[in-house]
C-alpha cells in the first residue's frame, strides 16, 4: 500500500459506480470479486482499471454464487474483500451471505438495486430491501446502509468495511441504479484526512505456524448436529448482533420536531422526501421526514420518538411495502395512521410526494 489512491480531499464529479470503486480503494480494499450485472458493472470497470495501479486485485467469477463465495474466501484468508451486484445477482448471492452470517465473515457487498421481480429492468428500484436485510435461510444478521447520494456512497462504502471488520458481521451498501449511473459532485478523500482509521484485517485461516505443532488449527464450520447446538449458536449470534445494534444505527430527521405529517423514506427517495418537506412547509403544511440510514439494524427507538409526535405517517418507497414492513415492526404499538406511497421499480419525485400529501 505504497501510494495512497487519494491524496487529501478533492471535489469530483462522477458516477456512483465510480464512487464505489474509489471508496474501496480508499478503504484499503485488497481484492474485489464480481460478476457483471447492470447497473453495477462500472464498479468493476473502474476497479479493473484502477486496482492494478495500487496493487489491488480482481477476479471475475463464473456467477454471483461464486462471487459471493470467493469473497468469503478472500475475507477468511484475512484480506479486505468485497463484491457488488444487483437484482437477480443479489438473489443468487444470498446463499453465500447466509454462510457469512453464520461464520461471521466480514465481507462487504454493494447492491445497486434494479427493478424486480425476476430480470425485470436494469434500471432502478428499491425492491431489494427485504432480501438485502433478511435474505436466505437466516435471521438477517447483517448491517445494511441505504445511501442516497454520491457523498454517502463514498462515506458509507468506507464505513461498511470498517464496521464489518470491527464487529465481524457482513455489511451491505444498498444503492440503486440511479445512484449507480448518475453523475453528481462529491468530495472524495483519504480517510486518514478525516481521522477515519481503517480497521485492521486479520486471517481466519492460513495463519502462521504449523497447526497441531505451534498452535491449534482453525477449524471453521457452519453445520451442527443437533437442534440444541444450533439454537445456542444462533442465540449467541443474535445476542452479539443486538449488542452491536445501538452502537451502529444511523438515521436522519428532517423537520420532524413539530411535524404532523412524517414521510418515511430511505435511500435515494430521501432526496424527494426532503424536497417535498421543504415545499410543503413553504405551503404551510407541517411536514417532516424520517430517514433510516441503517435498514439493518433499524433505528427503532429513533423512529418511535418521531412517530409518537406525528399525526400521520407516509411510507414512500420504490417498492411494494418492503420499507413499510421494517417500519411497522419497529414501531409496533403505535397507532398513528400510516399511509403507503408505493412505486415498485420506479423513481419518486418531490413533486408527486407533495401532490400526494396534499391530496390526503
Amino acid at each position, binding site marked *: 500500500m505504497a501510494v495512497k489512491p487519494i491524496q487529501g480531499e478533492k471535489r469530483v464529479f462522477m458516477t456512483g459506480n465510480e464512487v464505489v470503486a474509489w471508496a474501496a480503494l480508499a478503504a484499503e480494499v485488497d481484492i474485489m470479486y464480481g460478476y457483471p450485472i447492470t447497473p453495477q458493472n462500472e464498479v468493476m470497470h473502474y476497479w479493473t482499471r484502477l486496482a492494478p495501479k495500487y496493487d489491488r486485485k480482481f477476479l471475475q467469477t463464473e456467477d454471483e454464487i461464486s462471487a459471493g463465495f470467493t469473497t468469503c474466501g478472500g475475507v477468511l484468508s484475512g484480506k479486505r474483500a468485497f463484491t457488488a451486484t444487483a437484482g437477480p445477482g443479489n438473489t443468487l448471492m444470498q446463499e453465500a451471505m447466509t454462510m457469512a452470517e453464520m461464520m461471521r465473515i466480514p465481507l462487504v457487498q454493494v447492491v445497486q438495486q434494479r427493478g424486480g421481480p425476476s430480470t425485470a429492468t436494469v434500471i432502478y428500484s428499491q425492491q431489494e430491501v427485504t432480501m438485502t436485510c433478511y435474505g436466505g435461510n437466516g435471521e438477517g444478521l447483517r448491517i445494511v446502509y441505504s445511501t442516497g447520494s454520491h457523498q454517502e456512497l463514498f462515506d458509507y462504502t468506507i464505513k461498511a468495511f470498517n464496521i464489518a471488520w470491527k464487529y465481524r458481521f457482513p455489511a451491505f451498501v444498498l444503492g440503486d441504479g440511479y445512484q449507480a449511473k448518475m453523475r453528481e459532485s462529491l468530495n472524495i478523500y483519504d480517510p486518514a484526512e478525516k481521522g477515519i482509521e481503517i480497521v485492521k484485517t486479520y486471517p481466519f485461516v492460513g495463519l502462521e505456524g504449523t497447526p*497441531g*505443532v505451534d498452535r*491449534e488449527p482453525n477449524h471453521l464450520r457452519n453445520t451442527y448436529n443437533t437442534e440444541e447446538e444450533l439454537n445456542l449458536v444462533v442465540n449467541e449470534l443474535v445476542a452479539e448482533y443486538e449488542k452491536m445494534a445501538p452502537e451502529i444505527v444511523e438515521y436522519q430527521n428532517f423537520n420532524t420536531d413539530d411535524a404532523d405529517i412524517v414521510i418515511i423514506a430511505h435511500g435515494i427517495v430521501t432526496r424527494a422526501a426532503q424536497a417535498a418537506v421543504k415545499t410543503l412547509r413553504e405551503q404551510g403544511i407541517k411536514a417532516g421526514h424520517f430517514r433510516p440510514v441503517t435498514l439493518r439494524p433499524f433505528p427503532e427507538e429513533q423512529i418511535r420518538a418521531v412517530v409518537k409526535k406525528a399525526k400521520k405517517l407516509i411510507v414512500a418507497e420504490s417498492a411494494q411495502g418492503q420499507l413499510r414492513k421494517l417500519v411497522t415492526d419497529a414501531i409496533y404499538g403505535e397507532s398513528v395512521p400510516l399511509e403507503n406511497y408505493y412505486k415498485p421499480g420506479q423513481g419518486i419525485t418531490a413533486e408527486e410526494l407533495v401532490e400526494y400529501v396534499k391530496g390526503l
Partner: protein
Amino acid sequence: MPTKIAYRMNKIDTKRALFTIFTGLCKGCGLCIQKCPANTLIWSDELGVYGTPAVQPKDAEGCTGCGMCSIVCPDCAITIERKKM
C-alpha cells in the same frame, strides 16, 4: 501443544509381526479382512468403537507383517511392526 491421545488397543504378538489393533478406532468395516493377502484376519471378541467386533489375526502363524491391512484401513486402526527375522 501436541496432546497425547491414547486409543483403546490390543497388541497381538504374532510370529513375524507385532499386530496392534486400536479397538478405539476400529469400526468393524471388514475392509482389512478382505485385503489381507494371507487371509489371516478374523472378527475378534474385542469390540470396536461402535460396539461391533474388531479384528485380529486368527493365530500366531498367518500374519506375514506385510502391512496391507494397515494400508487399507480407513480409520488407521491397525499398526504392524514387522519383526526383524
